[in-house]
């Protein structure tokens, strides 16, 4: 093996006994790679292998099923509504929290993170308790013919809830670290508030913004637990892609289930690549600036 491989990073290993003996390093690396291979690589590869178990034609045919096409459309619609709404919220929250001081700020940050610590099942349950037939607003809604639970609005609401913190929690630390001197300079020089945001703040936060959007989009398209509670599993109407995967799997239609699942696995791989790219851009930016 090349001597540079597995060498400790950055320091001269000979200098002060700064690293473990080669045997220990090899052992640690082997253990970690085996663990990751068993827990991550094998499942990921198996999704695609199962999806193509019956060949390409069967694969494409199962993606072209009417119910699956409706599920894909519903998932895209849900993400297209929930991601922009949470993006807008994330920018507003980060602006208020990073640029101003006010009492209760740390409580507000904790509350924004709240949806992450709530079980997806409970994230769905709360909307059933609000809008379901036995819920607070249920009788009024049904009297006016408005359906939220077991319909598309409930799916969108539950998705907004589970993806709520992503953009805000990326932007808050980023904007706090950047301070407000640049915005103050622009404002003192006569720029309007909106121009300052567009020309000064936005270029500074664009990679962090993109990062939050990538993560919240992945979660919005892949959410299962919360959506499963509010959807009602009406075939060809209120099934998103993950719910369609469940239905096909429970029908013992494994090849089709994995074919549809492979769409989501592909999305996950794209998300990871995009995420690494954006992380690299953020590192480059911070080391240049």
């Amino acid at each position, binding site marked *: 093996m090349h001597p540079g491989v597995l060498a400790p990073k950055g320091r001269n290993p000979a200098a002060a006994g700064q690293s473990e003996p080669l045997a220990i390093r090899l052992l640690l*690396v082997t253990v970690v790679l085996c663990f990751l291979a068993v827990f991550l690589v094998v499942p990921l590869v198996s999704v695609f292998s199962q999806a193509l178990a019956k060949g390409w034609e069967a694969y494409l045919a199962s993606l072209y099923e009417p119910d699956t096409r409706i599920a894909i459309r519903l998932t895209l619609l849900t993400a297209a509504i929930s991601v922009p709404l949470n993006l807008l919220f994330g920018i507003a929250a980060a602006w208020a929290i990073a640029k101003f001081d006010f009492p209760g700020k740390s409580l507000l940050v904790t509350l924004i993170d709240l949806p992450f610590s709530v079980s997806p099942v409970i994230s769905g349950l709360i909307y059933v308790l609000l809008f379901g037939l036995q819920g607070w607003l249920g009788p009024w809604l049904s009297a006016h013919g408005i359906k939220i639970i077991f319909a598309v609005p409930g799916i969108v609401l539950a998705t907004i809830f589970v993806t709520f913190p992503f953009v805000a929690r990326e932007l808050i630390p980023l904007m706090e670290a950047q301070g407000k001197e640049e915005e103050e300079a622009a404002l003192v020089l006569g720029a309007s508030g909106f121009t300052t945001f567009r020309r000064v703040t936005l270029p500074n936060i664009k990679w962090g913004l993109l990062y939050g959007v990538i993560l919240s989009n992945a979660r919005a398209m892949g959410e299962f637990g919360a959506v499963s509670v509010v959807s009602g599993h009406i075939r060809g109407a209120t099934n998103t892609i993950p719910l369609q995967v469940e239905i096909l799997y429970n029908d013992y239609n494994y090849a089709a289930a994995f074919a549809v699942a492979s769409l989501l696995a592909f999305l996950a791989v794209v998300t990871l690549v995009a995420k690494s790219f954006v992380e690299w851009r953020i590192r480059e930016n911070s080391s240049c600036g």
Partner: protein
Amino acid sequence: MPLLGGNAMKHSRRQNVIPGFGLSLGYTIFYLSLIVLIPLSSVVVKSASFSWGTYWSTVTAPREMASYRLTFGVALLAATINCVFGVLTAWVLARYRLPGKRIVDALVDLPFALPTAVAGITLATVYSGNGWIGRWLEPHGIKVAYTPLGILVAMTFIGLPFVVRTVQPVLADLEGELEEAAACLGANRWQIFSRVVFPQILPAILTGFALAFARAVGEYGSIIFIAGNMPMVSEVTPLLIITKLEQYDYPGATAIATVMLSVSFFVLLAINLLQKRSRRFAS
């Protein structure tokens, strides 16, 4: 773009010239209330209408107690496994030069990116009797899929990134001087790790542990496919909530939800305290 000197900045800080405070904070609080706070309060309000006796007998019924033992017990075990392998992975990623390290680093986040339903059907297939991994375990009498062991596998999978991602940046930022000083004073590598490095990464490990535990406790999608879902044996608490909802037993579902919400609340509190402590430690 540092156009203003230090003095001018100090002057302007006294009077915040940045606009939009009312609008951005107002919108933040409005949207937060609408999406998160009001819906979440519906659980509290609904459970306030229960009498204490029915509430207590609902949340402590034998089937519920079995599901708490299973869910919290296996989640603790999974979070512990994630601590051990998470610290190892973070160590290798932060300290060693590896070919293809960027790929390994990106791969660690797979459980965050892979939808839970996909993870669930995949793990169930891979660990079933004729699956890629299950076929090697089954002859040795180890059944993973459709047993509580399967729940452990799923919970370990979804909690895997947390400890790595909390420990890795702390390891990368550690000052080399302390370790050099310890080495000069004659400490061996293990002593350096246990006495110098470990105390510094401990708050990050505990934070990662708490995050992985909280995620595992609430997990539904990846577990139900692999668990077998037998009442009293392999039925996790989130599934029990769904079962109650499907029977239109909303009070029962809500009562169990309050138990889970209080656990998440305490975990969240613990994480906040840990982070406050480690920040004080850092400064």
